């Protein structure tokens, strides 16, 4: 991918990621999150991870965002906009985050491999889905089945939590 496209999608992802936090309206935040995830999916595809990019769009921009929007519509969202901002607490939170960013930046600066470009790939005859699927069902078979149990437990938990208590 050309550097020009990389910077476009990187700026898109970061700007709309910031809009998620800065927007006071939760619907605007959720829609900004969709755009941010689409930019992130383009970054994944620029790294030749097409399967990851596509499930990013399907799972996040498709399923998770619909869930968020449903909940936002279900609840009363007008209360948030009337609240006053505690500027001291906000400045403290942003300060801690900036310190974290500086620390990560210094670590990346001292990391020698970070200055190298990506090595070229061999012309592959198989898709990355094939490789990921083969690993998933051989080396990572046990974690894969544990993930299945986890999703089942989450489903049962959601049904139990959202059931109305009989009085």
């Amino acid at each position, binding site marked *: 991918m050309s550097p020009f496209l990389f910077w476009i999608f990187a700026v898109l992802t970061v700007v709309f990621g910031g809009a998620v936090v800065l927007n006071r309206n939760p619907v605007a935040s959720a829609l900004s999150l969709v755009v941010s995830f689409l930019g992130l999916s383009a970054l994944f595809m620029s790294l030749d991870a097409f399967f990851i990019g596509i499930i990013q769009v399907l799972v996040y921009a498709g399923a998770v965002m619909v869930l968020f929007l449903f909940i936002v519509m279900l609840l009363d969202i007008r209360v948030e906009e009337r609240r006053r901002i505690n500027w001291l607490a906000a400045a403290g939170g942003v300060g801690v985050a900036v310190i974290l960013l500086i620390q990560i930046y210094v670590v990346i600066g001292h*990391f020698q491999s970070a200055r190298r470009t990506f090595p070229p*790939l061999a012309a592959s005859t198989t898709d990355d889905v094939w490789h990921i699927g083969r690993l998933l069902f051989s080396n990572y078979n046990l974690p894969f089945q544990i993930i299945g149990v986890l999703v089942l437990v989450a489903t049962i938990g959601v049904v139990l939590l959202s059931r109305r208590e009989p009085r």
Partner: protein
Amino acid sequence: MITLGDYLVVSAILFTIGFAGVMVRRNLIIILMSLELMLNAANLSLVAFSRFRVGANGLPDYNAQVFVFFVITVAAAEVAVGLALLVALYRARQTTDVADITSLKF
């Protein structure tokens, strides 16, 4: 040319935005969205390292991409349970603001 460091810096900025959202915002829905941003920032650096570590056969390291697959699955389950908790909380207290939920505060 785009280096590995560029992707890592984008990932770091995205993680910091999510971290700031968790620290600053008091609406539980926005806090959950910020958690998603942090998980995705970690995914971006995993995929960047996967592409960087090309093996002898000229293919990326697919172990990292399997790990990203697991992270996405766990994140989807986490969002479902988190939003169900949010709805249960809203039914009990009629609020989604963390400043109003102080029963467990020491």
